């Protein structure tokens, strides 16, 4: 009995001790999916994938408990530097900029950038240089995207940036793009899932996956490197990669090359110090791209607003003058458009309807934003139309004006003035909401800024620049609206 009590006491005492074992927070994006990181189908509160297992190996090797932190893939670098977690992993590519800004592990996996094309184009598009003037898709802010940008300068290829790695392939099959350049792991996974395309055998480039640490955390990085080397040597890494179906003999050769390198070399030699003037050079490099993206934002917003105003006027007129059935239908339209996220509407228009009508991304963006904002505009116009005193409308009728003339000559002009201020607000809101269209591959101002920020490793300068451009658009607009309101103040 006494022995049993002592045992229970010991167990109870050991619980907090176990809970206090230091934790290694590691950040990744479960949206990236298998084989990197995905929510476990058996228990979606857990994650699985080869990056999950490697993170666990590192944690255990450091005597810690791994704890997963979900983070958007594009934000992993920023978050690790902020201290949201100690190590970031999720198919992160080894790039010189990454090494310049953070402490980066030894590479633990070698992948190929491969070109996927439709079967009919197998003979035509073998390599990037065959795709002059053609649309080639990839994930934004990746090595592949940089390769496409470089190729664009050489051959005029058109890079199309996506926020996820599923839609590039579905759009390839649908004919929206002519090729996709991405990691072989992603390409092979998409081929298994959806099919309908072929992967060209000749890789466009070779890259490596690494783990990233905060710059100040180089010591932990060095310890993690030792763990990774040990796991390469004892075959644990190989078993993990085999389990996830991404092992090849070439990986064995790659492991041997990594192990042959002297461990002490990497901290001093591989991590380049930040090059002074990098952001200045980057600014010059990105300014034309930012200007182009700002132009796209402006044109897109103007076209979408024009569409919203036109449809909004028709909807408002229908709701004020129309048959009860028409009024009911238009009310449903307004409530559905206002009651669901514009992001969802963009997805439905671009991807959901692609089986019926295959709209170009820009047209889908104009249509999506236009239809959404039309609902808001129609409510403004309806309220403005109904604010015109009934006696004025009756005066128009007693004077022999038709309903159409009363709308055009009496009600409309006065309603327009009432609607002007809320319309301006909506246009400014639309300018900012236009940043959502990057989800359907339109690279507008915010998306271009995000790409710029990822490449220079800071949001400070790109963020300020981006904000200034938005302000340069919206401030004159407000001034213009105020001037117009003054002019139309009728005495």
């Amino acid at each position, binding site marked *: 009995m006494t022995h049993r009590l002592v045992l229970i006491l010991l167990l109870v005492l050991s619980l907090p001790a176990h809970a206090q074992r230091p934790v290694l927070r590691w950040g990744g994006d479960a949206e990236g999916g298998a084989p990197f990181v995905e929510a476990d189908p058996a228990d979606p509160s857990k994650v699985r994938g080869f990056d999950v297992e490697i993170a666990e190996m590192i944690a255990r090797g450091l005597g810690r408990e791994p704890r997963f932190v979900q983070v958007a893939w594009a934000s992993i670098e920023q978050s690790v530097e902020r201290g949201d977690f100690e190590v970031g992993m999720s198919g992160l590519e080894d790039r010189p900029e990454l090494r310049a800004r953070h402490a980066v592990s030894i590479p633990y996996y070698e992948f190929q950038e491969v070109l996927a094309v439709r079967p009919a184009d197998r003979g035509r598009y073998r390599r990037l240089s065959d795709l002059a003037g053609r649309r080639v898709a990839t994930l934004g802010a990746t090595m592949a995207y940089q390769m496409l940008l470089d190729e664009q300068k050489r051959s005029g290829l058109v890079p199309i940036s996506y926020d996820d790695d599923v839609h590039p392939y579905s759009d390839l099959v649908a004919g929206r793009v002519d090729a996709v350049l991405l990691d072989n792991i992603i390409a092979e996974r998409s081929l298994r899932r959806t099919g309908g395309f072929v992967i060209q055998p000749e890789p466009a480039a070779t890259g490596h996956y690494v783990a990233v640490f905060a710059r100040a955390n180089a010591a932990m990085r060095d310890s993690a490197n030792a763990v990774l080397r040990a796991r390469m040597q004892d075959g644990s890494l190989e078993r993990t990669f085999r389990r996830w179906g991404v092992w090849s003999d070439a990986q064995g050769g790659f492991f041997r090359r990594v192990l042959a390198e002297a461990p002490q070399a990497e901290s001093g030699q591989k991590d380049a110090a930040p090059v002074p003037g990098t952001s200045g050079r980057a600014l010059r490099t990105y300014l034309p791209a930012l200007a182009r993206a700002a132009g796209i934002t402006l044109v897109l917003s103007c076209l979408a607003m024009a569409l919203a105003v036109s449809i909004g006027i028709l909807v408002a007129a229908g709701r004020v003058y129309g048959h009860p059935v028409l009024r009911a239908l238009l009310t449903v339209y307004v409530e559905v458009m206002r009651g669901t996220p514009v992001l969802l509407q963009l997805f439905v228009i671009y991807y959901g309807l692609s089986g019926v009508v295959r709209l170009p991304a820009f047209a889908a963006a104009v249509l999506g934003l236009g239809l959404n904002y039309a609902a808001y505009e129609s409510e403004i116009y309806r309220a403005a139309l109904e604010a015109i*005193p009934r*006696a*004025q409308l*009756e*005066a*128009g*009728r*007693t*004077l*022999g*004006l*038709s*309903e159409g*003339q009363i709308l055009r*000559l*009496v009600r409309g*002009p*006065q309603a327009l*003035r009432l609607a002007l201020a809320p319309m301006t607000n909506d246009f400014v809101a639309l300018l900012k909401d236009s940043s959502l269209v990057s989800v359907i591959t339109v690279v507008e101002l915010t998306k271009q800024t995000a790409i710029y920020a990822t490449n220079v490793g800071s949001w400070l300068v790109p963020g300020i620049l981006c904000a200034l451009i938005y302000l340069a658009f919206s401030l004159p607009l407000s001034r213009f609206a105020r001037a117009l309101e003054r002019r*139309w103040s*009728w*005495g």
Partner: protein
Amino acid sequence: MSGALRVDGLRVSRAEREILRGVDLQVPAGEICALMGASGAGKSTVLRSVAALQPFSGGSIDVGGFALNPGPVPKESRLKGLRRKVGMVFQAAALFEHLTALENVTLAPVHALGWTKAKAREGAMALLEELGVAHRADAYPRELSGGEAQRVAIARALAPDPLLLLMDEPTSALDPARRGALGETLRELADQGRGLLVSTHDVDFARAFADRVAILHEGTLVEHGPAADVLDRPGHAATRELLRGPTST
């Protein structure tokens, strides 16, 4: 004198309630008829029915030979003949706020009657001159005083040169001096051969300027005759009540 307006047995119901219960009324050309009665007696309903702004359920209306029948208000395209014959001045003037006084007056002649802008402008300036507000031609409604706005509204209603002018409570926002001036103006308009049907609470105004007075009480015309007869020798309790009340609202 020929009749500008003839109303026979006018009935108006709204949601089971009878607003007008068979009103008979004539307004000869050249006369001012004051339509009087307490609030809710149905004065505005008579005016709105004559102007074809609302349907009526029984009786008939004839404006200078244009007949209106019970039932829904006809389409505007079928009311063009009526619109040339009836002008209406609303209680609060109801000027088009985004147009100047002159534009308010020229709008209908240009767009409903197809006059040239020059002809409409010439006619409008003559009317504004006649009504003493030509100097305010370029002012917007919110820059006008109540009296000026009302005169512009009269000019606007007169632009198509109607046979019958309907006025809803024209004195309600005017001081005594302006009431007198308005009465004289209305007298001149009647003398030009128009019939005027003016709804009012204002006994003094009716006594001074109306040729005839019609008393409405709970949807029924209880007295109708020369102004002096009705106002000086009231025969109905409602008229006596009206005469005892305040002379203006």
